[in-house]
């Protein structure tokens, strides 16, 4: 269904670019980019390899498998994460029921203790597994959280400026996203702090066609103040792998679905 809509939009855009009346609003552009980046297909699986490099060049590695299931309508999603590296977290599992506009429901399972911990998390800007990516930069920031305007555009890109509706909930004052006009894949995101200074850059380093879906397979987050960066690679990507809703429950926290985790 979503693929049809995206297809229709792309077609429309092609018609539009040949010189026609209605232009896309900033909201439309962001909506398309959000769909293209976080909501491809009805479900997805990927292996994630993160390398976190600090200002002294020391590296840490994070390896995990992420399963994602979209709700049939609306922005709700469920995530299941199986941690593989580093070794001291291997076997831990994490479950998220994402509810944009509300706090997510999150659980962490510690196999050594057979403990299902409910995780209190209202801060989506905190670091994801100690990397330079914030939690919502991995799972997707709700598009209703900011006011979007088209700052400029050229033949290839839209430059969208986004200003948070609730400035106290985030560490930035605004961010600028460069979105490819053809694919709606965000190419680059520049984040500006409360003083208007550029402090963080997110970039897509590689985009591939996976089963008909354009997917960012390599991205980088750079912290200009701390002079560190994280490179995140996605591999073994699958879409519409027929994930069932019951995988995203406590049952599978205890017993990770091997079929998808292997």
């Amino acid at each position, binding site marked *: 269904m979503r693929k049809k809509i995206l297809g229709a939009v792309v077609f429309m855009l092609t018609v539009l670019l040949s010189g026609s009346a209605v232009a896309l609003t900033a909201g439309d552009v962001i909506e398309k980019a959000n769909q293209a980046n976080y909501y491809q297909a009805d479900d997805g699986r990927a292996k994630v390899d993160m390398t976190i490099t600090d200002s002294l060049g020391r590296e840490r*590695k994070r390896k995990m498998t992420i399963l994602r299931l979209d709700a049939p309508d609306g922005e709700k999603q469920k995530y299941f994460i199986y941690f593989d590296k*580093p070794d001291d977290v291997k076997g831990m599992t994490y479950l998220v029921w994402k509810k944009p506009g509300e706090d997510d429901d999150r659980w962490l399972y510690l196999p050594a203790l057979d*403990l299902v911990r409910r995780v*209190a998390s209202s*801060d989506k800007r905190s670091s994801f597994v*100690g990397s330079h990516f914030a939690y919502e930069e991995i799972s997707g920031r709700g598009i209703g959280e900011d006011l979007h305007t088209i700052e400029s555009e050229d033949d290839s890109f839209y430059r969208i400026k986004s200003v948070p509706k609730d400035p106290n909930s985030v560490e930035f004052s605004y961010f600028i996203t460069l979105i490819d006009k053809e694919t709606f894949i965000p190419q680059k995101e520049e984040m500006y702090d409360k003083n208007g200074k550029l402090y963080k850059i997110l970039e897509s380093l590689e985009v591939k066609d996976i089963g008909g879906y354009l997917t960012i397979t390599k991205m980088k987050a750079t912290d200009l103040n701390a002079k560190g960066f994280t490179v995140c690679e996605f591999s073994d990507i699958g879409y519409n792998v027929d994930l069932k809703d019951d995988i995203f429950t406590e049952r599978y926290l205890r017993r990770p679905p*091997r079929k998808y985790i292997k």
Partner: protein
Amino acid sequence: MKKISLLLVLIVLAFLKNVCATELPEIHGFAEGAFAPKFGSDKTKHENFNMAEARVQLKSEYYFDDDTVLTDWQTYISVKFDFLLDGYMERSFVTDIRELNVSFMPFDFMDIKVGRQVLTWGTGDYLFLNDLFPKDYISFFIGRDDEYLKKPNDALRVMLFPDWFNLDLVFIPFFRENDVPEGKRISFFDAFEGGITGLNTRREILTRSNNPENFMYAGRIYRNFSSYETALYYYRGFDPSPRSYYSERDLMLYYERLDAYGGSVRGPVLSGIGNIEVSYYYSPEDSHGDIRERQNSRMKYLAGYEKDLGNDLRIGFQYYLEQTLDYDEYHRALRSLDYRWDEFRHVITNRVTKLFANQTIRASVFTFFSPSDMDVYVRPSLSWDATDAWTLTIGANLLWGRDSWTEFGGVQKNKNIYVRLRYSF
């Protein structure tokens, strides 16, 4: 026992080597050295420290992948062994099988796990109401990793997942007691001696025999209502701590029969996570509460709240209440020189956790405070992931009590600080 454990380990390794024709499944684990100097003077085995050990943990999982029904049932074997060189106990070498179990899914609504496994449920943070599975409080007091607070059971666990609810049924044939302060490593309040006692304790504990009438059962029925997790719990077994007197004259305690019934709710409250849990502990051997040597039935109540304040700072609070039922009968049965426990014991806990340096440094303080017992237990800890493999943890166990007969006051001579260095692979 130690030789049997080691033999069992070798058998399992040999089995795995044969079963997986080409290669062993991945083995992970860690090697850790730990030391804890202590600051109370009491009559335990060593005055100046209560932990000095080297430990290696090995764990592995084997998934069946052949053409048998085992693969259809997604069967896998889980093993976890600890090898401990314990410098506190005359450098004794201990093999501890922490996990040795088989999991399989004979129907898509049923998971079964049989063998040695750790079992945990309930919503408390270091407080257990409906989780009556055995605990190792000695490891808790000396500064071992949190993993060691729970002792594994040999059990059969059947988990059922029909549409409307989930069911967790546990059958435990062999009783395992809590490891409680015994005087050798951890001094404690001994009512027979009338004060804090170490090696000089003369008390004994009657062990439980392993026959069918002593089998234990535990169950949980649970489901989510949107974001709210609800559960009802049942336990039929024994008090895992020896609280009742089998024979006062012989200075002998025992593990009394205990049934527990309870429930819990956990979910979002005021931008955080709130939980409520309740449990009714029924003592069938003292159902009217008037037998002086036996524990009365009790109620336990818990309310908790945890919030993420942003920037990797989290706080949590709990209010916990223990109520002795049939208190008048209990009071009437006491003799004039007996210690008298309060009808209500209140405990407030607090946890503060902050992560620094890309989450490689974790600072945490957990505090238990009882305004009714007037005692306190503070557990600060700082851990640093020097690399992805090396972790250094330092912490302390700080205990104070106005009196010596309360839960934390009784162990206040065991204050220590500890250091653990771990290499994970």
